[in-house]
């Protein structure tokens, strides 16, 4: 475990998901980072990295020793240094973005032609930062280019890029007033604080959504907005006039309650039929050679089959239980122009606004808005519990509690589809192949 910890620190790009304990669960010691700091001379950092503090090396409670006070203040200083580290842009690789407070705009001097009416710049209207001449691979999977080779960024994309130190955003001169052009570029760089003030709350970008977005981006996932991003978006063709939260009874396999009643009524009508359970036991008399047949006749209780549930429009849901992000694993190659079916669909929930778990109508609307994703593959076919866990539809809930996010996967399992008596691995006990056993005499 200790080795794994250090690997995470030494190789930041390493896949942390393989570690069974989540390091981000706890406050980590920032002294592990001091070797990364530009402003702390290497002689002051602990270069004998053999004595890296291990996870869990914390004290039980404060005591008045000076030793403890020293260690604490060293830890705090390290944290201070790590967080005080500036976002620096090398002149060669600096990428400058310009803030467009009113959304996508035409370049200076461009005269709008009648062709442009209703079409605009040709990028998503929520974009608010553009990069005049985009180059470099940092911006792969981010942004949308327009006809003038400008790259437009959505608020969360721009905020993430400025936060990780990859983008230098400038205030537009229209907002800060113009300066005499003596040194050319005198636009004012936007601070991180200003970027948050301008981007958060813009076009549906809440702090919770942003926290989830960056958390996934930092781990290498590709994240895109889903159609449910806009809380007020409604499906284009309203489905049968149902309220979005109306619970449509899913279709069930098996006779159902009314089915059972009508069966019983039939039996009453014809009590002398030999097949009628009214005249005898449910399974009936006769020779039964297999448990399978017996169980099949006993399966009176209806069960829910997710494959028969109606497909709903993903917009036919109510926030926060609607999909706002489509997420792709780092291994999936993603092109914005032709997005494949996402690996994960994520709904973001804020614990301070939604304090209860979703109701069944909310949950089924959420699930029915996702396409059927049955358990397939060799492993799934072999392992029943994997099939049950995978389910036939799935969605991920990202629950954010004041900046701390937890991810829950909800799968629509079909227990009724797993017939224990049919399965090869079904427990059979000693009585193989039913009661009947040919015996040699």
């Amino acid at each position, binding site marked *: 475990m200790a080795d794994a910890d250090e690997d995470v620190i030494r190789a930041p790009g390493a896949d942390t998901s393989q570690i069974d304990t989540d390091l981000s669960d706890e406050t980590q010691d920032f002294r592990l980072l001091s070797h990364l700091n530009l402003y702390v001379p290497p002689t002051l950092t602990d270069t004998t990295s053999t004595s890296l503090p291990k996870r869990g090396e914390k004290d039980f409670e404060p005591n008045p020793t000076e030793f403890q006070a020293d260690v604490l203040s060293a*830890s705090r200083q390290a944290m201070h240094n790590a967080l005080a580290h500036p976002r*620096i842009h090398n002149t060669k690789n600096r990428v400058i973005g310009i803030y467009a407070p009113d959304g996508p705009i035409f370049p200076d001097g461009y005269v709008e032609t009648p062709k442009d009416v209703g079409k605009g710049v040709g990028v998503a209207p929520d974009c608010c930062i553009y990069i005049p001449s985009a180059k470099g691979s940092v911006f792969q999977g981010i942004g949308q280019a327009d006809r003038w080779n400008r790259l437009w960024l959505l608020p969360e994309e721009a905020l993430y890029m400025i936060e990780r130190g990859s983008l230098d955003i400038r205030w537009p001169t229209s*907002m800060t007033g113009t300066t005499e052009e003596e040194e050319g570029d005198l636009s004012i760089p936007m601070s991180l604080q*200003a970027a948050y003030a301008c981007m*958060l709350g813009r076009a549906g970008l809440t702090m919770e959504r942003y926290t989830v977005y960056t958390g996934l981006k930092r781990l290498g996932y590709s994240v895109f907005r889903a159609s449910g991003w806009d809380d007020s978006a409604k499906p284009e063709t309203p489905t049968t006039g149902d309220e979005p939260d109306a619970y449509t009874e899913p279709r069930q396999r098996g006779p159902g309650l009314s089915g059972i009643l009508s069966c019983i009524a039939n039996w009453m009508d014809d009590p002398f039929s030999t097949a009628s359970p009214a005249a005898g036991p449910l399974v009936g008399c006769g020779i039964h050679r297999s448990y399978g047949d017996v169980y099949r006749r006993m399966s009176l209780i209806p069960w829910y089959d997710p494959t028969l549930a109606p497909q709903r429009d993903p917009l036919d849901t109510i926030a926060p239980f609607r999909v706002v992000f489509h997420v792709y694993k780092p291994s999936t190659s993603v092109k914005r122009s032709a997005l494949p079916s996402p690996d994960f669909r994520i709904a973001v929930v804020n614990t301070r606004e939604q304090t209860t778990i979703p109701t069944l109508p909310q949950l089924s609307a959420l699930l029915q808005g996702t396409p059927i994703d049955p358990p397939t593959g060799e492993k799934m076919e072999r392992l029943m519990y994997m099939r049950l866990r995978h389910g036939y539809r799935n969605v991920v809930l990202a629950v954010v509690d004041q*900046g701390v996010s937890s991810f829950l996967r909800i799968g629509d399992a079909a227990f009724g589809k797993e017939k224990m008596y049919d399965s090869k691995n079904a427990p059979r006990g000693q009585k193989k192949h039913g009661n009947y056993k040919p015996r040699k005499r």
Partner: protein
Amino acid sequence: MDFQPTLPIPISFISGRYLLFSIDFVTYLRREHNICGVLTGTLPQIPQQNVFLGLPLELMPEEARVLVDKGVACIVDEAKAHQGMQSLLEEDRRKYLRELESQGLHASRIFAERKGQKKAETLKKIAEKKAKGKAQAKPQSEESVNAATATSEPSAANDEPASVVDFFAGDTPTPSTSSKGTSTGTPAAQAFHVTPATSYPPLPDPTTSSELIVFRPDVPSSYPLFAHMHSRGYFLSPGLRFGCQYVAYPGDPLRFHSHFLVVSSEWDQEIDLMDIIIGGRLGTGVKKGFLLGGPRQAKTEDGSEIERTESVRTFSIEWAGM
């Protein structure tokens, strides 16, 4: 020696959340007022991980409220404050740009120095290796002992470059040209560009302008318990992932494990016995106590929580399996 800010500290209120962008304030609140918050930003040094996070710091409404009630902080409507960018004076703007430029120069100079040092170290190491090779070539026992002691040192130093992640590596595709500049001892030709963390300066101090300062933060009904625990010196963090409302640490979470899973309840509220058992078992399972508490006094009309906080009682439940 420690940084002492002028009070009150401005807490940025952006889109309904309470955020801090200045590292000095973050350190100060942690040191003097036991307020940790949650770091939510990306660290520019190592952006592709979630273990170490950076600014901004998100504060719970409870934390913001405690600070406001103590007079340590005030809430600033940041969107409004940033409209001040339009009325920035020409003079201030120039001053600010000059300041940023000097910061950038400083950074680039340090960077160049560090690069030079690293190069010198590497050269030294190569020289040592060569010397070692020569020493080994001579089959004299004394010298081989010397060589052995000498090799133990470089091996320690060897570890270092591996652990030092050069975060400029991606930024300098042609390291040969840039190191050429540093080896001659001249400062780097161009200053780096710096993205500042906060907007003050160039904007004027927001705490002096009364129209920017907004209301007292709204808090959930668990606030009295939060304030009570906080006043007893506990550090509190959001606790959902531990199955509670707050996790209480006896000291700075940097150095101490948490002791309690805190759940608040109203005085006359009926509590399901199951919840107590679940909490008790959960807490004991992770070596923490399950702490249940709440104010005896009902909510007052003026919304002041001071009396309620004084009437808080707490109970700790431990699963005493025999």
